[in-house]
């Protein structure tokens, strides 16, 4: 910390070199538990095919509405399908939609945000106007319209939710890019004769990316909830493919007789969304603290 810099009673103000700001730079147990849960769900969804599970769509293999037992850890549903198997295969849909939509949003929105935030000018004004309109547009109506017209398959759902995530992600990346574009190391790179794309890729992207990825975790959680809502309304991937939202909808109809059918997918979604939010929040703070120390 320089003599001329404001010296607050922060740890950075105490230490001459800002090293103290690095103290306690740990992600903490909440993050690791959250990350562990997400990893577990991802792993289970990926391995669902090779795990000793029943076919999630096969009707009539078992008695309907069995309680949890050794054979069916989570019991069976109205049609006798194994609930564990359906929750895990449902995770496939939810996670695929979540990750793929945000990957799309990150690629497109991130690129737009970087370019708009670095070059500014008319391009930026155009983007800003578009983003404002897009954000003001009621997302649910957009979703319903598109899915109704395009059809209800995985790719369409992913693309629709992905398009919706472009504007918010681009905004965040643009804001962070603007912060870094004003830093003197960017000016130094320009003074060295580096071209725009080199500055974007080498100087700015590595700084903006961690924050964007952390935000993406939270965004994935939002998309998973959105996909849940769509399937609840019967507008996501068509049955019999299991989805968490679809299962909750089915379970809702037999809630009085058997609450477990709705409980398991709800719990899975709740915990996953919670874990993604925790992990994303913590990561964002983590990167901010790092920045603060610099």
């Amino acid at each position, binding site marked *: *910390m*320089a003599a001329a810099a404001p010296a607050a009673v922060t740890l950075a103000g*105490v230490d001459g070199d800002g090293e103290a700001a690095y103290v*306690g730079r740990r992600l903490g147990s909440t993050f690791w538990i959250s990350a562990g849960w997400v990893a577990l769900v991802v792993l289970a969804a990926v391995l669902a095919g090779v795990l000793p599970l029943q076919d999630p769509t096969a009707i009539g293999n078992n008695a309907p509405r069995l309680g949890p037992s050794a054979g069916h850890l989570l019991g069976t549903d109205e049609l006798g399908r194994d609930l564990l198997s359906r929750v895990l295969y449902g995770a496939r849909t939810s996670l695929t939609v979540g990750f793929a939509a945000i990957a799309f949003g990150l690629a497109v929105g991130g690129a737009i945000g970087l370019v708009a935030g670095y070059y500014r000018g008319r391009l930026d004004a155009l983007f800003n106007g578009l983003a404002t309109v897009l954000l003001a547009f009621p997302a649910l109506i957009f979703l319903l319209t598109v899915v109704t017209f395009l059809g209800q398959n995985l790719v369409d759902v992913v693309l629709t939710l992905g398009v919706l995530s472009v504007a918010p992600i681009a905004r965040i990346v643009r804001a962070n890019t603007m912060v870094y574009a004003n830093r003197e190391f960017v000016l130094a790179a320009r003074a060295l004769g580096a071209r725009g794309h080199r500055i974007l890729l080498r100087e700015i992207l590595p700084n903006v990316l961690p924050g964007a990825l952390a935000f993406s975790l939270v965004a994935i959680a939002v998309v998973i909830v959105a996909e849940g809502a769509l399937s609840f309304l019967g507008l996501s991937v068509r049955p019999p493919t299991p989805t968490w939202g679809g299962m909750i909808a089915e379970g809702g109809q037999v809630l009085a007789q058997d609450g477990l059918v709705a409980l398991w997918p709800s719990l899975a979604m709740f915990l996953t969304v919670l874990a993604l939010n925790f992990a994303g929040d913590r990561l964002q703070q983590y990167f901010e603290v790092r920045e603060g120390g610099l």
Partner: protein
Amino acid sequence: MSGGALLEVDALRTHFLTGRGAVRAVDGVSLAVERGRTLGVVGESGSGKTVLARSIMGLLPTTNVRREGRVTFDGRELTGMSPAELREIWGAELSMVFQDPMTSLNPVVRIGRQITETMRFHLGIRESEARARAVELLRSVGIPDPERRLREHPHQLSGGMRQRVTIAIALACGPRMLLADEPTTALDVTVQAQILNLLGRQQRELHMAMVLVTHDLGVVAGRTDDIAVMYAGRIVELAPTAVLFSDMRMRYTQALFRSIPRVTDPGHRRLVAIGGRPPDLAARAPGCSFAPRCRYARDRCWAETPPLADAGPGHQFACWYPVEAGEAEADAASAPLSATADGRRI
């Protein structure tokens, strides 16, 4: 009231507890300030000077801090007081001015309210009377057109004007002591001179004691009665101002004094830099904390911490191999030659 000093600080320690261990920001400081006198506290970043000022006030974070020792103000022990008791004293008898006037003023509250609030709290006067006094105060700190300024927000004022306002707030209740923490570091040099003169004038008129914390030896030279030089959380030399400049003993004081370029020096003079970097307060090694950067350090300096030793009336220093009389001139002449080794230690 007894004839003792207005402010007495006794073996004050402030350690911040962090994941890396305790950061010993203030590590055993004792000093006293008499009524109406000015003490300059000089040090670089990481010397603990700002934390010292805040520890005296009691303005420290509430968690992960360990404060030991005693601060006595006007016969009352501040270190044992509750926040409510401290608030009675803050602003009324003991005030503080901070480095950055923008962050110490509330950006959404008009200047007038910020001044009258303190007065109404401590003096129990009515708003109309407080306003009249605020106008007088602003005029006395050299703000033109004070009635208009009272209705403005902090961002509408220049940096120097804002610092004048924070000084007006600090002086509103006629405190007996002012702690000024780098009050001019954020300001331009012409404005700095104005603000320092203002502080000096107000101090004389109110017969107020002052602790002036700064990194700039020039700022304290003509404006203080005594100077404490801090390094690594401790006072390494304490002396009446004139004595410190004419007869400095501690090697760090000498090195600091020599490293500053002067506006009166002819150009291209090679500066006598202090090698290395300010110390890490979380990893205190035995011995003198300046030893790693001191060109006079010998074995003893690395092994034993020098105590504050008396060198004359009001003059103390902590050094095993201090500057001897007559050495200064001889050394200054040879300085350009010995200076080539500077700054190569990483």
